[in-house]
């Protein structure tokens, strides 16, 4: 059963992947092993594909480094639930195909280590017999995520979601 990894407010990209462990510094194949190296050294090894990240306010503030969420994706992260996001990080998540749910109540209800199930399509989180409803991301992003990511969308259509044909 996937578990919840819960963090507080203001988790920055230096927390998620410190600059000195960028793929540029340690190699393309190894950098994910340093996810949360300073904040939660046991994270990279303990995280299982499908586990859920639950964070507080202003999640992902700081550097534009896409390799921070990329490290999480490489570890098998598919969705984050947060109270709010910093903007570059939010775009990066969408671009990488990680679903950014925003829901303060659900964040409040979930605890670190909880065993949960995420029903993607319906935007539901289940814990035992409790069911939490998540707010869906904006339609524009759903359109892109529906095709995998904005990158995939652009590749297929040579335009951005919502952009008139060129």
């Amino acid at each position, binding site marked *: 059963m996937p578990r919840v990894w819960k963090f507080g407010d*203001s988790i*920055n990209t*230096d*927390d998620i992947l*410190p*600059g*000195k462990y*960028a*793929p*540029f*510094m*340690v*190699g*393309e194949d190894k950098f994910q092993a340093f996810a949360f190296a*300073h*904040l939660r050294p046991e994270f990279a090894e303990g995280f299982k594909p499908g586990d859920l990240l639950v964070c507080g*306010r*202003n999640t992902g*503030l*700081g*550097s*534009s*480094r*896409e*390799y921070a*969420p*990329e490290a999480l994706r490489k570890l098998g992260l598919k969705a984050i639930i947060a109270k*709010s*996001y*910093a*903007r*570059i990080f939010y*775009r*990066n998540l969408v*671009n*990488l195909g990680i679903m950014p749910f925003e829901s303060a109540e659900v964040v409040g209800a979930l605890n670190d280590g909880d065993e949960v199930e995420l029903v993607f399509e319906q935007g539901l989180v289940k814990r035992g017999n409790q069911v939490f409803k998540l707010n869906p991301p904006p339609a*524009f992003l759903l359109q892109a995520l529906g095709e995998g*990511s*904005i*990158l995939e969308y*652009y*590749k297929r259509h*040579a*335009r*951005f*979601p*919502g*952009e008139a044909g060129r």
Partner: protein
Amino acid sequence: MGQTLAEKILSRHAGREVRAGELVVVEVDQVMVVDSIAGSFFKRLAELNATPRFPEKVTIVIDHVAPAANIEVATAQKEIREWGNKHGCRVFDVGRGICHQVLMEEGLSQPGGIVLGSDSHSTTYGAVACFGTGMGATDIALAAASGRTWLRVPESVKVTFKGKLAPGVAAKDAALEMVRVLTADGATYMSVEIHLVDGAESMTRGERMTLANLTVEAGAKCGLVVPSGEILSIYQVPDWLYPDAGAIYARKIEIDLSTLTPLVSVPFFVDNVQTVDSVAGKKVDQVFIGTCTNGRLEDLHAAAEVLKGRKVAQHTRLLVIPASSQVLEQATEDGTLLTLLQAGATIGTPGCGPCMGRHQGVLAPGEVCVSTSNRNFKGRMGAADAEIYLASPRVAAASAVAGVIAAPEDLETTSSYGLNETGL
């Protein structure tokens, strides 16, 4: 209904009148890529099966680890040069300087333009009312491939700075005060529109860069300074590039510059801003003067003024890294560099230096650094528990002399501080 500066710029580029909240796809004028992101950028372009649509609009700067610190970095930088040559894109190599400073010096960010950078401090271009914003590698690759990007037209926070700074108080202090008031997520997704009035319009381009640079620490998408003062003589500012009187703002803030005193941002968050007095006396291991926030000639001048005829404290290291080769040349020519060297400074290659903890001045566990940079996050400059205090070049220089956090005004008294007297 009037428009904000952000709405004006995005309307021009979208070819229709747009308002906050709308999604737009706009043409971009320049796509900037830094060395540490270039590898992901190339990879994404390859996934897209694309090459830059307008090679002259793509610029790569080798600045984050320059010169290369290890074989991985050296290999990545070699690829950058080869790729740049092959595709006809500009590459600024080792030693030219920090991306944002270099783009400004090279005139690649112009009033009313849009510059996307693979670096969050791309808000810096707002100093000249250029819509600069940071994005990740995929967005940047898409922009290079298409010549366009998608944006949500941001709401705006109007920040008015009025009056003049007291002697010894710097634009950095004004910027820190702004982040304190806005808080770290107070301007998320928004444009911070900066108005300089009642004397504040005399702020230089460099000082405006410091203000615009720090807006991202309040979460901003861009930080646009309304053109005035010397900007009008350096650039051709188009008539339309001013916000309308009736523009709608999400929030308005006013900061009276004359009331500010020297400030520091205390670990581990940038909006944790306090007066220098409240942390004065804290022992300092390293002082770093440089970065895209405060590594310009005027910053080195401010530091040199404090350091002239003085020496860096024995237990403290002073690291000075000019923001660009141009800054280094000018500081050499006018004697500033000699003053810094005589005080005991170590000079580094123009570039980011230890700002993000990769090389040239990484901090050991437990060390304390006073830095003129823009982030003091946990582990940012090295060890997880090393502490970074963000301050102006003057306060940084004074702290280097005193060996403890100090304002220049305290120097005569603090420079005699023995370690025992401060209890450290």
